[in-house]
Every structure is written in C-alpha cells, then in structure tokens.
C-alpha cells in the first residue's frame, strides 16, 4: 500500500499507458540525454541535466524560458527501484541536506501491461506558500504567462 495520500487540493496524479517497453520509459526518466528532449513543456527547454541515480543522488536541470532566462533546479533522489519506482524531491539537496525552498516531491511508478507500460506520475506539493514561491520563481510555460495576462485583463474589464 502506498504511504502517501494525494490531497486533491494540492497534489496531482497522472496516469498514462504508452505502447513501449518499461525499460525505455525508465531510461527516459533517468538518463540526461533523454530528459533534455522532453522534460520541459515547450516553448521552454531543458538545456542541461545531471543525474546521479541513487538515493541521496543529485537530479539537476536547467530550464530556459522562451525569453532566454535560465532557471536551475536541484533535487535529490529518495528512491530508485529500476523499472519500477523513482522518487525525488526538491525539499532536499543532494546528500539529503535540507533545501531552502521546498516545493514538491515527485513519484513515478511504472508497471508492465502486456507489451505496454502503465506509468503514474504523482506530484505532491507543499502548501499555499509553496505554490506562491513556485510562481514567483517564474516557472510558467509561455502560454500560462499569456493566460495570466489575459485573465487579469478580462477580470479588469468584466467587473
């Protein structure tokens, strides 16, 4: 049984079935050369990735905004069970040192389903304060920023 209980107000659980072997899905989550290809929603990009794949090991990415601004992210792996489960958090730095700005823990669970793979991505977030901090870091996709402006604009005109 899972230890964690998703809170619908704070957490996300996403389930996918993809028609590729589990080993390939695992590789895509754990090899830097793969991560840089897909990890950041376009038009943002991941320009750099370092992985030390073991509990306490470093998961480091640098994301670049469409305007060319770089945002480094450093996390720490908590659980590494090849082809089954990957857990990391930004609440800890590599080597388990507590970080300054804890925001989330991610759990990726993989299951074989015939020739396909079912994977579940769970993002556990801290709280309202953590959410705000994350927004202040500027972690928006391009359209989300555009959307914020649009929402503000429309709220101003409707009310």
């Amino acid at each position, binding site marked *: 049984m899972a230890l964690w209980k998703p809170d619908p107000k704070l957490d996300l659980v996403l389930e996918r079935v993809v028609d590729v072997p589990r080993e390939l899905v695992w590789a895509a989550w754990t090899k830097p050369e793969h991560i840089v290809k897909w990890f950041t929603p376009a038009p943002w990009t991941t320009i750099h990735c370092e992985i030390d794949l073991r509990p306490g090991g470093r998961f480091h990415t640098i994301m670049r905004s469409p305007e060319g601004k770089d945002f480094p992210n450093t996390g720490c792996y908590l659980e590494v069970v090849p082809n089954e489960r990957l857990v990391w958090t930004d609440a800890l730095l590599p080597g388990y040192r507590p970080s300054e700005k804890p925001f989330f823990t991610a759990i990726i669970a993989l299951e074989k389903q015939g020739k396909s793979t079912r994977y579940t991505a769970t993002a556990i977030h801290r709280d309202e304060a953590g959410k705000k901090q994350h927004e202040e870091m500027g972690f928006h996709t391009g359209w989300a920023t555009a*959307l914020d402006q649009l929402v503000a604009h429309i709220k101003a005109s*409707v009310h």
Partner: protein
Amino acid sequence: MITPSEAAKPIDHVFRALSDPTRRHVLERLSRSPASVSELAAPFNMALPSFVQHMSILENCGLVQSRKTGRVRTFEIVPKRLKLAEDWLVRQRALWEKRLDQLDTYLITLKEK
C-alpha cells in the same frame, strides 16, 4: 483516488482553446463587450469559415456563448469558464499533461529507432 484522465477533460479543452493567438485576441475583444462574428473577424486576415471554426472551438469549451438575432450571431464571454483556467493546480496539471505528452511522443520515436 483521483482519476486524472476524467478530471482533466474540460480544462484540457479550455487550455487547447487558449493555446491559439487568434482565439486569445477574440477573448480580449469580447472582454470589452459582446460582438457579432463579422465585428470579431474584421481585424483578422482570415477566410470566414476558418474564423467561424475558431469561434466554435471557443464556444464548445464554454469560454464564450452566442445567440442569434435575425441573421446576426452575437458572441459574449463566459467569465466563469476562464476562472477555471486561472486556478494554480489546474495550471500545474496542464504543465504535467504537456510534459507527459512530450514524453509519450518521445518514447514512441525512441521505440521506432
């Protein structure tokens, strides 16, 4: 347990509708006042059928609604729907959905190699 595929549906449509610059312009215009199709289409260099298609995408996801008086169809914005897209967690979900879409596409290309 949340069933994400179901929970994500209406908002997916809203985000898809908002992903297009023409449709965002239309929403901005409608935020000032309701308008007819020809008024809305005027600023764009676009064939009317294509423009009407944009309007039906906006209407199908509930961001706008329309009524017909005589031969004129007038559109207005539905602010409640946009509120949905404003929510923080909804945006996080959209971000993860997009990330995983990219992963799945990438995995398929890897498999084909």
